[in-house]
């Protein structure tokens, strides 16, 4: 993950500078993992700095899962190595005045545009690629009262805004002139001026083109000669379910939690069955499927006719 790389670089810097661990200097509250805990531990033990650096790197990797030094997690609990938090384009990490970033991007930090601090605010990037020296943006998020300068890198200007979900109108002021970006969504606002539209959503829709269609491979020819299972086969323990299939929407008790986490593709189109109701006469069948870029889990309760 991008964040992890950032942290490791800083750890590297720390070794060169040979100060008490540079991690404290960043002032970020990444502190969750990076350790207020072991910072305190290291201060008296400066002598063992190389060893402690080694520990830090190990701890770092622990957090990034699948390090051979750590005891293996039980299969039911280990996160899939391929599981990433959804990636959003983010501004390059900055020191000092940059926004603190966590592993979980959806923390509630804001630049002061949020009118209700308890609402979830989502970072969104606004860019201007048509040159100019001074580019600022103003928008309906604070009723057009303030202008924010964009940061320039070459011909491109950009800014990261953290806003509650909704639709906003905004305009660029390029060297004193009102402009809009014709490549992005635009619409006239209430006063008839043309503005760009920013749609801040709390989920990132799938890029459907990137989901390759999957043709299931045909069964290998030699499998057609398998005999039907015998009593002996039924007496054996059933094959273990692959661990990824434990991570289903069905297993989630809390409906709020279920609706905000996207199911992994690996659990789609598998039929789950739940038995063991009091009367043993009802089963629950569960299936998660994809419809365009959204996911639907349907649970059907069916009587079991004996």
């Amino acid at each position: 993950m991008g964040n992890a790389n950032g942290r490791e670089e800083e750890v590297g810097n720390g070794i060169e500078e040979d100060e008490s661990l540079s991690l404290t200097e960043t002032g970020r509250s990444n502190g969750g993992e990076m350790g207020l805990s072991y910072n305190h531990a290291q201060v008296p033990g400066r002598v063992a700095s190389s060893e402690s650096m080694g520990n830090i790197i190990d701890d770092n990797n622990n957090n990034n899962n699948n390090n051979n030094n750590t005891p293996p997690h039980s299969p039911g609990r280990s996160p899939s190595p391929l599981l990433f938090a959804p990636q959003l384009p983010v501004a390059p990490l900055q020191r000092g005045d940059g926004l603190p970033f966590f592993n979980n991007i959806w923390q509630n930090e804001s630049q002061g545009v949020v009118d209700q601090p308890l609402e979830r605010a989502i970072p969104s990037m606004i860019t201007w690629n048509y040159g100019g020296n001074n580019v600022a943006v103003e928008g309906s998020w604070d009723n057009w009262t303030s202008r924010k300068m964009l940061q320039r890198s070459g011909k491109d200007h950009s800014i990261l805004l953290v806003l509650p979900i909704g639709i906003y109108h905004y305009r660029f002021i390029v060297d004193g002139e009102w402009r809009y970006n014709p490549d992005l969504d635009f619409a006239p606002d209430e006063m008839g001026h043309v503005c760009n539209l920013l749609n801040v959503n709390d989920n990132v829709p799938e890029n459907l083109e990137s989901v390759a269609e999957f043709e299931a491979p045909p069964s290998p020819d030699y499998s057609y000669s398998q005999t039907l299972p015998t009593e002996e086969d039924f007496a054996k323990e059933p094959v273990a379910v692959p661990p990824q299939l434990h991570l289903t929407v069905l297993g989630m008790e809390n409906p709020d939690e279920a609706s905000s986490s996207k199911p992994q593709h690996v659990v789609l189109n598998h039929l789950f069955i739940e038995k063991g109701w009091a009367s043993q006469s009802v089963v629950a069948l569960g299936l998660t499927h994809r419809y365009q870029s959204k996911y639907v889990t349907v649970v059907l309760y069916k009587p079991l006719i004996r």
Partner: protein
Amino acid sequence: MMSLCPRNYSYCPSVIIWQSDEAVPRISVTDLEVSRHRISLFLSTHNAYELLPESGKIIALDVNLPVKQAFHILYEQGISVAPLWDFCKGQFVGVLSALDFILILKELGSHGSNLTEEELETHTIAAWKEGGKLHLTRTMDGNGASFSRRHLVHAGPNDCLKDVALKILQNKVATVPIIHFSSQDGSVPQLLHLASLSGILKCIYRYFRHSSSSLPILQQPICSIPCGTWVPKIGDSKPFAMLRPNASLSAALALLVQAGVSSIPIVDDNGSLLDIYSRSDITALAKDKVYAQIRLDEMSILEALRLGQDANSPHGVFNGQRCQMCLRSDPLHEVMKRLANPGVRRLIIVEAGSNRVEGIISLSDVFKFLLGYPDFVGHHFT
């Protein structure tokens, strides 16, 4: 404005006009038309796919499940409506809702349980839907239409939001399943979502909240717009439906069915709001199979509500979260914002301080006002 229309609680709320006896702002007709036009445009250009959450879960029931178990499932899953699937037909054929439970209980109560214990165990949803309700339709005034429907009211993911909202209003239902037919001949249904007015309102609110000047009507206080059901000020022979806490459960259920409302405020002797009894509260009777052990006229609604509350509920009888309240001076956009929360279907309008009930404003009231229904409906749905 115009003359007072007395409110009769046995009608569903419709547009009312009454004499303003206080200094309330008058709404301008152009404000209203501009707002309605913009909302109508928004609803016509967005479709039901937007209502789907990124990852949603729906519970469906096989139509051959025994009714008893179906209600246990509704209760345990914390839902109040579930679509019904018929394996033989390979289609979704209807929904099971709290209203069905209420009707079954009433029927059992009134006939002194003609069904034996064993029959009650095995009485299926299909049998109930086919036969059990027919004799009741004759006693329904204006709501009987909802029970004689032979097919499921549903919508597709590409239907526009306006059509979905109108379907909900015209069929007087709370939810409309969104179903996608994935094969060529439309024979394989894929259940996607249960659309409700709450979800549509959330879309509207999200879209317009940062450009409030484009919907001027939203700034108006709700007492100045013809929206909601209000306790009539002038003495009227037909009271606004309310109940005391010691009213019997059977009286509450009878009132819910007869008045065609989805909830009734519970008030004390001064008319101050204590709690609210909704149709969906009936599923709490599935807890510990209480419904089999009680007689409806011997249980008070207070006891029935206590059943539904967790032991951890800190509020005791009066739970501020259950009864969402607002003031008559609150602007419409504030009311819409509160109604856009899932699970909130109505706000009770109270007097500041005393909590005296002044009226109720519900999701369907807001939509009827915003769409100008039923006067300005474009097309008719069956």
